[in-house]
């Protein structure tokens, strides 16, 4: 990993800072949160920020918004990480095999990728949820599944280029079996592009998860989730606009941080940027 490059640019350092902050918040949620995220207090409902000890206000059931946002970071980051892992775990091997073996396997995999990529990500996720019901694991599959063709296609392209290299021919000449060439000689060269794509995929996965929950098809109450909090807050927009502001801000911030990290990583891995200050 090119951690130094990540911190060298100002925006990369900012992004890393934001991501570290959110990961720490998620990990240490019980320490940071002033209250339990699901504790209701109907007498303290819909308090604006700063009142009655509600730092960011309270919702219609008197639950502390700040605590709910803090605990919400757990679910968003977990879903993001899990679904990207799924996309990488299936997409990368498929892409390497398709690119390296070529022929019929390649044609079939790429055609399947085309088909899946023709369905907008959120719709594909909606189809999975519609047929498999609502639940945490369904949600992860629904969000991670559309990533599979993205990684497969990316990796296939890089594999095609790498397979042309002389050292691959050399490895073949020495009698290395295909799986060994793929694992030892091709995969390590894919770490760069896959890491960069994984970062952007994670950002998009977190947004999609929030969107699905906003539509009522994702994380279910009483689990605190930012998208769902926004959906609930709609009904109180006139009287309690702060309920809209903060969960959305948290979501936008974490995605911004991840996107900045992705930009910095892309520059670090892209030879055209190497040596230049970003």
């Amino acid at each position: 990993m090119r951690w130094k490059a990540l911190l060298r640019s100002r925006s990369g350092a900012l992004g890393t800072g934001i991501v570290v902050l959110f990961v720490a918040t998620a990990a240490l949620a019980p320490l940071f949160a002033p209250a339990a995220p699901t504790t209701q207090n109907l007498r303290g409902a819909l308090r604006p920020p700063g009142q009655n000890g509600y730092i960011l206000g309270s919702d219609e059931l008197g639950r502390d918004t700040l605590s709910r946002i803090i605990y919400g970071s757990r679910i968003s980051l977990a879903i993001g990480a899990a679904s990207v892992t799924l996309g990488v775990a299936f997409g990368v091997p498929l892409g390497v095999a398709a690119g390296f073996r070529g022929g019929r396997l390649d044609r079939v995999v790429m055609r399947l990728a085309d088909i899946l990529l023709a369905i907008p990500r959120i719709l594909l996720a909606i189809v999975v949820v519609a047929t498999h019901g609502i639940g945490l694991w369904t949600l992860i599959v629904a969000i991670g599944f559309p990533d599979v063709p993205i990684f497969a296609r990316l990796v296939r392209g890089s594999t095609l280029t790498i397979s042309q290299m002389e050292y691959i021919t050399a490895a073949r000449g020495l009698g290395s079996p295909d799986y060994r060439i793929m694992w030892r000689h091709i995969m390590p060269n894919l770490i760069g592009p896959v890491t960069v794509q994984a970062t952007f995929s994670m950002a998009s996965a977190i947004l999609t998860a929030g969107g699905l929950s906003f539509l009522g098809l994702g994380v279910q109450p009483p689990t605190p989730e930012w998208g769902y909090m926004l959906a609930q807050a709609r009904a109180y927009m006139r009287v309690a606009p702060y309920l809209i502001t903060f969960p959305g801000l948290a979501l936008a911030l974490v995605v911004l941080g991840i996107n900045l990290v992705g930009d910095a990583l892309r520059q670090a891995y892209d030879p055209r940027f190497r040596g230049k200050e970003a």
Partner: protein
Amino acid sequence: MGVFLARRSMEAVLTVLGLSLLVFLSLHLAPGDPAALIAGNQATEQELVVIRQRYGLNDPLPVQYVRWIGRVLRGDFGISHFGERPIWPDLADAFPISISLALGGLAVAVVVGIPLGILAAVRRDGFVDLGIMGLAVAGMSMPVFWISLLMILLFSLRLGWLPSSGWGGLPAAILPVFSVSLASLALVARMTRSLMVELLLEDFVRTAWAKGLPGRMVLFKHALRNALPPIVTVVGLRLGLLVGGAVITETVFAIPGLGRLIVQAVNLRDYPVVQGGVLLIALAVIGINLLVDMIYLMLDPRIRYA
């Protein structure tokens, strides 16, 4: 060129076939009985038998698929479970709304995004560049539903300038179109900037400056002309995402488009509507991708001979 188009069209047809199979199978790949999925959890065994009969679920899958495709090709997407009426009219009403929303968003992304990108590239590393690119990253990171709600809060509830929901007429379209376009706008601006930054360093651009061509001419004819093909590709491929993003926008602004129709259908477990809606959107995306390839062909003469 003819060969390229023919091959590309063939691929599109294959994709459409595969897609229809996938959409058809999605009902059958789900765990459990498709009849139960259609009827809902509370269905009695007797109701299930009726449904299996009515939807022909007892036949072998290939037979069911061919029958389904045959009906879809005739515009018969089946009967909604609720209200017992054909689905097609609903889909046909909603489809143009979603497409105009997405196209509107795309137009805004291009018309605003390309000039912003050029401006940032020309003022490279300056204050303007930093500002535009900062806004672009922020725009990419904003959840559609959040920015929509914030805009409703400001422009509808606080200022009362624009309607907060509904469809029809320009005022009602402004907020949703902007919310749909934001992420693409940001992407187009970023892409235009990075392409232009590289092109402006090219020898032929320097030559153009050196021989005293007016700046406008150098920027647009020499640099932008070469940046356009990749921009067209990305913008075209974005359209799918735009239609997807429209799912959320339509829900927030209560716009009677395909996205909202699909989400409502999922909540009602009205599966034929979900199937039809997804199929229609995916078909539109494939068609648009084909169109993008053709435009690319016109913009980049090298491909014609490849």
